[in-house]
Structures are given as structure tokens and as C-alpha cells.
């Protein structure tokens, strides 16, 4: 081995070491984002991109992103973000990226990973989620009050616990306002499929439903409902309001930036490193400001419906006769208060097969929330994976 080859080898190793050098607290950071859909979906990915922009605004962070990465294909993309773009932190933003992210985390032990909506972690991989179930409960309250046919609808993506949890919270809100109402469900087996969402919505309309909520990353359900003069809730932010300003009552909005900024600030300060985030699990709800109900920017409930909500009286077991409008705002205040005094999933709750899923006097733990499979009493329709 002559000296030149040895020198070259040393240089390569040094450079490689420099390329893969771990992040030091106080340094500027490059943050990579992997999105499962297009930014323009006005849904899940759009919201994550808004969070990314909040990260970009931080003085010490710059961002890189890749959109429309199919679930299962994230491995090479992560490798590319780390090797070519020098990312110190990588966020993967879909449940289906879970195993690929864990795999990459175990291979790149100097890089910090964050996985949205999953449950597997590593010393350098944390999980985070802003969950909507409280917001869906609030939406359900209003839906139960406004439905004329006593049939509300939910167009669901996949029958996984996350979607079922949102559906059940919505159904519970509906029942609290309207014990006679049914919640009809259709599944489209995709996070993004405007064609399937259209046909599912049309099928629900044919079944007689008149208020629509959904888990799908486009304004399709909103526009199809509006074409038939039916009401809906926007999903993932108030951008959907513009498609049907007279038919969107409220909706679920999320501020992923609040979670991203909180986490990255802690990484910058050296609180979180690539060795100690095994147990970091952001489960942020309304009280942390991560999620909130919203019809349009700055507007919680569409003013067109407020009079009707004030006139609709609910006989609540705790508060007596109270208008839907007041009950909605009361629950909203309860959810926003860090000293939690109410949860939709507080017992006693029975599923639609008559099983008691939450006994009286108890609440559901986060573990039970993220593994939920049952269907609430007033749910009508297929429910794959339902326990007997």
C-alpha cells in the first residue's frame, strides 16, 4: 500500500465520518420530511407541509421534503435524504411508513427520526400524533343537532383504529345531541381517491344521509354533498370551506407545526438526542393547541348555522336543558383546558353488539384508544375487524 492510497483511504473515511456526523445541540439543523401524498391534496399532507413551513421559519432549521412517497418505498428516500441532503432529523408522515422508518432508524443511529401516527419507537425514533377525536366529538354534537333525516354519514379510509376512533367519537357526539340518529359508514380503502369518495358519498346520499364527515385527503365529499345541498365538515383544515361556503358547518384542523417546533426546539437545546427518545410519544390533543375545530380560518362554527344550533335543545344528564350551541362551546372549553374534565370515551360505553367496552367510572387509556376496533351503538354499516 503506497502512501497515496493510504492518504486517500483516510480522507474517504474522514469525509464519510463528516457526512454522517451526528447532530450537535446548538448547530443549525437540516430537517427532512417524507409525505405520503401531494402537498396540494388540501388534506393530511397539506397540513404536514404547513407544519414544515413553521419549521422553515425557525432561525436554526432548514427543510427538505419529498412528496407522494408510496408506503413501503420510504427506505431509499430516507437514505437519500440523509446521504445527499445531510438531514439530521427525518419525519415520516404516514402510518404505513412505520416499519420502514424503524428499519432506517436502526441503520442510521446518528440520525433522529419522528414517525407520525405509529407506535414503534427506538432510541433515535420517536412517535407523534395530533389526534382529532375530541374535535370529531364536537363535530358530531353539531351534526346530530342539524340532521333532518336523523342519518349522518362518515366516509372512512381504512378500517384501522385511528379512523375507527374518529368515527366513534363523531358517533358519540351525534348521540349526545340526538339519541335517535344513526351514523352510516362507507369505506373506500384509500387515503386519497376522489373517484371512490364520490361514489361512496353518492351511495350514502342514496341511503338518506344529510350531514357528512370523512377521512379522505381531498374536498371531494364536501363538494359532492354540496352539489346535493347537503352539509359537511371539512377535514384537515379550513381550506375545504372555500369549496362550499354555505354547506361546511365546521371541521377538523390541525397545527402540526406546534409539535414539530416543540420537538425541534428540544433537539436544538440538547434535551432530545439520538439516544434518548425511546419513550417520546407526542399524543397532543386540543389542550396543547395541536388540533381544534374550524370551519374557515378563524371561524369555529359557520355563522349560517348558529341560530339553528341555538334553537336546538338537548336534554343533557349533567347540564339539563342546554342548547346545542352552548353544549358545543362548553365541551370545547373543557377540551381546551389542560386540567381535563371530560373525555368522550369515558364510561359507561357499550359497542353496537352490546359489549361493555368502557365500564362506568373509567376512561380509555391511550393504548386502548390506539388499538380500538369496536363500533359505537349508533353506527350502521360494514365494520371490518369488529370484535364479536
Amino acid at each position, binding site marked *: 500500500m503506497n502512501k497515496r492510497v493510504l492518504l486517500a483511504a483516510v480522507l474517504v473515511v474522514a469525509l464519510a465520518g463528516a457526512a454522517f456526523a451526528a447532530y450537535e445541540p446548538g448547530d443549525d439543523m437540516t430537517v427532512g420530511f417524507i409525505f405520503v401524498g401531494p402537498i396540494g391534496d388540501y388534506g393530511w399532507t*397539506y397540513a404536514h407541509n404547513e407544519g414544515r413551513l413553521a419549521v422553515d421559519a425557525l432561525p436554526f432549521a432548514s427543510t427538505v421534503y419529498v412528496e407522494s412517497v408510496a408506503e413501503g418505498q420510504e427506505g431509499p428516500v430516507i437514505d437519500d435524504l440523509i446521504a445527499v441532503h445531510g438531514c439530521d432529523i427525518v419525519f415520516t408522515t404516514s402510518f404505513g411508513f412505520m416499519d420502514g422508518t424503524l428499519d432506517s432508524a436502526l441503520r442510521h443511529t446518528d440520525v433522529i427520526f419522528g414517525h407520525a401516527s405509529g407506535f414503534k419507537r427506538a432510541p433515535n425514533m420517536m412517535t407523534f400524533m395530533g389526534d382529532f377525536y375530541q374535535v370529531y366529538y364536537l363535530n358530531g354534537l353539531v351534526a346530530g343537532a342539524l340532521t333532518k333525516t336523523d342519518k349522518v354519514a362518515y366516509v372512512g379510509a381504512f378500517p384501522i383504529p385511528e379512523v375507527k376512533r374518529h368515527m366513534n367519537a363523531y358517533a358519540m357526539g351525534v348521540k349526545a345531541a340526538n339519541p335517535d340518529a344513526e351514523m352510516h359508514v362507507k369505506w373506500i380503502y*384509500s387515503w386519497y381517491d376522489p373517484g371512490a369518495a364520490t361514489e361512496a358519498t353518492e351511495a350514502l346520499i342514496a341511503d338518506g344521509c344529510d350531514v357528512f364527515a370523512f377521512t379522505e385527503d381531498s374536498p371531494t365529499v364536501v363538494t359532492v354533498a354540496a352539489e346535493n345541498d347537503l352539509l359537511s365538515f371539512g377535514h384537515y383544515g379550513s381550506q375545504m370551506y372555500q369549496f362550499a361556503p354555505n354547506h361546511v358547518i365546521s371541521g377538523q384542523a390541525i397545527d402540526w407545526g406546534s409539535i414539530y417546533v416543540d420537538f425541534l426546539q428540544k433537539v436544538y437545546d440538547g434535551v432530545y438526542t439520538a439516544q434518548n427518545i425511546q419513550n417520546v410519544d407526542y399524543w397532543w390533543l386540543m389542550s396543547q393547541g395541536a388540533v381544534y375545530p374550524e370551519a374557515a380560518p378563524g371561524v369555529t362554527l359557520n355563522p349560517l348555522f348558529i341560530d339553528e344550533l341555538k334553537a336546538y335543545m338537548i336534554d343533557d344528564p349533567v347540564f339539563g336543558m342546554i342548547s346545542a350551541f352552548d353544549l358545543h362551546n362548553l365541551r370545547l372549553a373543557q377540551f381546551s383546558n389542560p386540567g381535563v374534565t371530560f373525555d368522550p370515551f369515558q364510561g359507561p360505553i357499550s359497542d353496537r353488539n352490546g359489549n361493555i367496552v368502557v365500564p362506568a367510572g373509567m376512561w380509555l387509556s391511550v393504548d386502548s384508544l390506539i388499538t380500538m376496533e369496536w363500533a359505537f351503538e349508533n353506527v350502521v354499516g360494514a365494520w371490518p375487524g369488529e370484535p364479536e
Partner: protein
Amino acid sequence: MNWESWIIETVSRALIYGTPMLLGTLGEIYAERSGVLNLGVEGMMLVGALTGFAVAMRTGHPWLGVLVAGCVGAVFSVIHAFASITLRANQVVSGLALTFLGMGLSGVIGRAYEGLPLWSKLGKVSIPLLEKIPILGPAVFQGQYPLTYIAIGLAILMWFVLYKTRIGISIRAVGEDPATADSLGINVSRVRYLCVMVGGFLAGVAGAYWSVAYRTAWSGGMTAGLGWIVIALTIFAFWNPLWALGGAFFFAAMRVLSFRLQAWLPPELLNAMPYILAIVVLIVVSRGTLQKQMGAPSALSLPYTRGED
């Protein structure tokens, strides 16, 4: 839930959902009948969808959007035609490249249009007297897009041209045995180019229907695999435009039904139902005497050079 409203709803939705499938299939049938396999349908549809949406938005004329989308689709398909006819490249590769090119181009250029609402969209129409016919009226003649009727008319016209006119004979000859066709004085290249462009035009129109009529918005990848279904439907229709009518609307009806029936049958099964039924029908139809008459054009996906065997 009476059976009358079921039939009306299902047929009506099937017509609406199946129109882009029919349009795309008709175009692909002509392309493949002339011997050129065009796998770029998905890309052409996306480009057409974006073009249609953009033109409709900027000019306020949805029909102009549809027309321009068709033309853009045709121009786009010339890339594939040039590669596979003039350069005699591998048609599978060229078609797939067209798909990715279309997906990428439409995604990048379409970013400016994502999330914008379209106010000047293609409206639904109802045919005045015919819609009064019991059951058939509301199912077929009420609340449909004009493009649906155009597509059905096109299917009949294109069938007639393909089987009953000299142009059709030329097309089929070029697809079955280009050497013989060439010796008879038919310009093989020109016929193939034109057929591919017809395919591109109709794919563009199908894409525009998706974004200007069916779901008046644009977002990247919005056709979500429709192009691949079209390619499958071409085979399912045995390269016959009339059968494409039946095939496209049958497939669409299955898809629509799969949502209506979710309360009674497992959704996973219903999701697979259109594809399973397509396979079942193919098996049943391929047996027996029909098999002699049905079959892919013999020269499909084979480049032709004068003087080569």
C-alpha cells in the same frame, strides 16, 4: 330501499363513473388495432385532466378545456408514436415512459392549480321527453353529462368505422399483417400515427372529463390508476368498440355497487369485485367458438420495417 331506486341509482352512477373509462378504452382500441401498444394512457389522462382544468379555469369555457385537453393528449401521444413507429423502440418501455412523463409533468405544472375551485364546470343535462320513461328515463336520461352521450355515440361510430368502412379495414390490416398492408399500398406509418393520436386525443378528453365534470378540481395523480383500468378494459372488450361500451359500464357498475352493498357484504370483497368479475367474464367468454374470432391484433407491439420479416 326498493329495487326501482336501486336500479336507477346504479345505472345512473355507472354511466357517470364509466364515461372516462369508455373514452379511454375507445382510443386505446384504435391504437392497439393498428398494432401499437400504448401503455401511456395514465400519463395522457393526467395531462388531459390538468389541461382541461387549467383552460376551463382561465377561459371560463369548460368545453374548450375538453377540446384543448384532447389536442394536448394527441400531441403528447406523438412522443410515443415517434419512439415506437419511426424509431421502432420497444413499445412497452416507450409507453411506460410516457406514463411517468405525464405524471411528472402534470404534477409539477399542476402545482399552481391545486386546490382551486372550478366555477365554470361541465354541467349535467336531462333529455326532456325521454327522461319521463319509467325507470329507464331517470336512469339514463336524467342528470348525465353530455360527454356520456358523446362517448356512447362515439363507441357506435368507431365500431362502424372499424368494421364497415375501408378506413377500418386499413387499420385492422395494419394491425394484423403490416407487410401485406404495405404491399397493398397502405401507408403503415401514417395509419399507426393517426391511430395513436386518436388514442391520445380520447385519453386527454377522458382526463378532462375527470377534472372538469366529474370531480371539478385538480390534484396531482387524481386519475388514481384509471389509465391502467383502461388498458385492461381494452383486452376485456376484445378490441371491439361496441364491447367496450358494455365492458366500461359493467366495470363502473360493479364499482358503484361495491359501495352500495357495503352494509351486506364485506367491503374488502366488494373492492375486489369488479376485477374478479372481469376475470370471470374473460374466462367464460374466451372458451369455445368465440375464441377463434377474438384475439389481439397479430402485429400488436411489433415494430414494422419495410423489407424485414
